[in-house]
């Protein structure tokens, strides 16, 4: 399983990388971590004529906290995300999801930008960024724009990126005070693609009632699913078992999982409901016990 031939260019600057992508469009691919790209090239499912290695562009990596947000460079590796103490404190949702991503060796190379740009339907980070209300900064040679996470993932393995664009930065708004989070996933084995995953972000008012809930799922659709509307059932309430069960039922009704060799759609739907209940309860308890 050897890749087809290509021309390799190690970009030394973002401008150079973008210029090359502008020139070659879909014939060129960016090489970041390579943990998804190289396997597809080894299978010859992907045959880019040009490979633009962006690993040498140091500015593209880094975790930059500020008062209202944390900005994460697209080239930041999962491993760096796992090890950053401020990120772990401020965004425990990310820390909770990272151990589910593949295996340690993959996490040493894979990048958050590569993961999001690849937009695998079973991938955790798209659902996480959606739950966190993230924005993505995207650059082409002569333009820049911001895309909300909710607009970025348009289909299975498909994003809103134009052929000449690169995702360069992810902006995460800090969580509101009194917010608890939880990420849960079921896979056949640790590190396998998710059969279903749920991210819950629960904010409480000073009466411990839910004032804001974000709920997203991965692995049960072509894109990450925003099920926050279903979770709105809990607004203004202390979440009871019955109410949370209703949310889970609403989530099950709104998703249309495609099934796979590992799970039937019915199983995915069932598990999505179970994880929704558990994640909501746990996120709530975490605020109560001081996570937020």
């Amino acid at each position, binding site marked *: *399983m*050897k*890749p*087809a*031939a290509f021309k390799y260019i190690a970009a030394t600057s973002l401008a150079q990388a973008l210029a090359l992508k502008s020139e070659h469009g879909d014939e060129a691919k960016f090489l970041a971590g390579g943990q998804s790209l190289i396997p597809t090239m080894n*299978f*010859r499912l992907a045959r880019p004529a040009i490979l633009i290695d962006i690993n040498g562009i140091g500015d593209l990596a880094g975790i930059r906290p500020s008062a209202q947000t944390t900005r994460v460079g697209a080239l930041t590796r999962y491993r760096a995300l796992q090890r950053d103490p401020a990120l772990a404190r401020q965004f425990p949702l990310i820390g909770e999801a990272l151990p589910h991503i593949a295996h340690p060796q993959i996490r040493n190379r894979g990048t958050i930008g590569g993961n999001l740009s690849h937009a695998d339907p079973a991938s955790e980070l798209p659902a996480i960024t959606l739950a966190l209300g993230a924005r993505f900064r995207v650059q082409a040679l002569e333009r820049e724009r911001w895309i909300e996470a909710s607009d970025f993932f348009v289909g299975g393995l498909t994003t809103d990126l134009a052929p000449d664009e690169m995702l360069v930065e992810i902006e995460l708004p800090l969580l509101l005070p009194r917010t608890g989070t939880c990420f849960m996933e079921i896979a056949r084995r640790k590190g396998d693609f998710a059969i279903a995953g749920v991210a819950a972000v629960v904010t409480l008012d000073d009466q411990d009632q839910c004032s804001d809930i974000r709920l997203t799922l991965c692995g049960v659709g072509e894109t990450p699913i925003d099920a926050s509307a279903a979770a709105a059932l809990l607004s203004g309430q202390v979440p009871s078992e019955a109410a949370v069960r209703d949310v889970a039922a609403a989530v099950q009704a709104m998703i249309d999982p495609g099934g796979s060799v590992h799970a039937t759609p019915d199983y995915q739907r069932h598990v999505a409901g179970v994880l929704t209940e558990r994640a909501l309860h746990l996120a709530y308890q975490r605020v109560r016990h001081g996570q937020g």
Partner: protein
Amino acid sequence: MSTRTFGEPVKRNEDRRLLTGQALFIDDVELPGMLHAALLRSQAAHARILKIDVRRALQRTGVVAAYAAGDLGDYWQPGPVLVPPPPIAGIIFNARTQVPLAKEKVRHVGEPLVIVIAESRYIAEDALDDIDVELEQLPAVVDLEQALGDGSALVHDDVGSNVSAHVRQTKGHYAAAAAQADHIIRRRFHYEHGISSPIETRGVVAQWDGRANQMTIWDTTQAPVFVRNGLAGVLGLNERQVRVIAPFVGGGFGPKIMMFYPEEVLLPWVSMQLNRPVKWIEDRLEHFFATTHERGQIHDAEIALTKEGRILGIRDVFLHDGGAYDPYGLTVPINSQCTLLGPYVVPNYDSTFTQVFTNLPIVTPYRGAGRQHGVFVMERLLDFAAHELNIDPAEIRRRNLIPPEAFPYKNEIIYQDFAPLEYDSGNY
């Protein structure tokens, strides 16, 4: 007499080379002037071959040769039947063995059509895209029961059916036993098709030395002597001219004991044609259909019992998925048939199996070689019996174990060693 091994923990001798990365595995063999092979494999499970055109591949820089079945001339022949059928009365066995490169028809996904030889594996894989192949797809035979039904496509047209083998063996008289039974349980059991997946895939390196008239072959085989003997024969050499080296192997598990795989037969011939060493290393994608498979049975089993849970008899009718060819004879299903009896007294047994040709890769022994299928059926039947008769599952087995005074215990039916199945000793 001193003890060197009894009662002493013994460390392995081979570890140093393995722990330091110095052990020779097949892909570690590097020879001057070595060329690399890749095989164009059928993407269709069942198809007629209309056209194979390698001309464009031959024009690619770095490609040295490309061969299809017709290029092999008299060298092309089906492989040997490795295990002939045992002498069982009424047996049906239709021998159809695998070929080095498909001719006229392909019978499973992955069956090789062309072998390309190039300066590197990278270039050889590039050249696969250059080959023009036209296949006329035929319906694929995959379902075991449909395969035996009227109107099914035939894997081997000249057999007239998809029956690779049919065997019935009996002991005592089941029908009479069932008539006496207090309780009969009938179940259908599916045992799924699978593969062994060693971390190291297969590989062959062949080095023909035209001046010395010597053939050296490195092969991920569990049976180097047999492979040597067989290849010497087909290559027209005597055994002393052929050396087959089994290097360190990264997991054999049974499929690497299958002999005269297409690649084993092709690589030495290619080396002789080109007078250069040639290497083929199976990649993981190929492994799923180029190396043999196992399992795949459907049992309709019936057990007749007294109300105390004593087995009066068992009747089992099963289908075994043999894949597209049957070089291993009946080894796997015979093992299932015989091992089903287990350590229990089964006074009456009526077992019938049909080994079915399907458009899937060949099935050969893998870890257990069919015995586990028989064990699965027996043990599940006993579990159901325990549940339905309200007997403890361990107790129901204890009641049926062959007692020590009954050894040597004759189970009568013919086993894969061609002799009636007899347990020589035991105390369960």
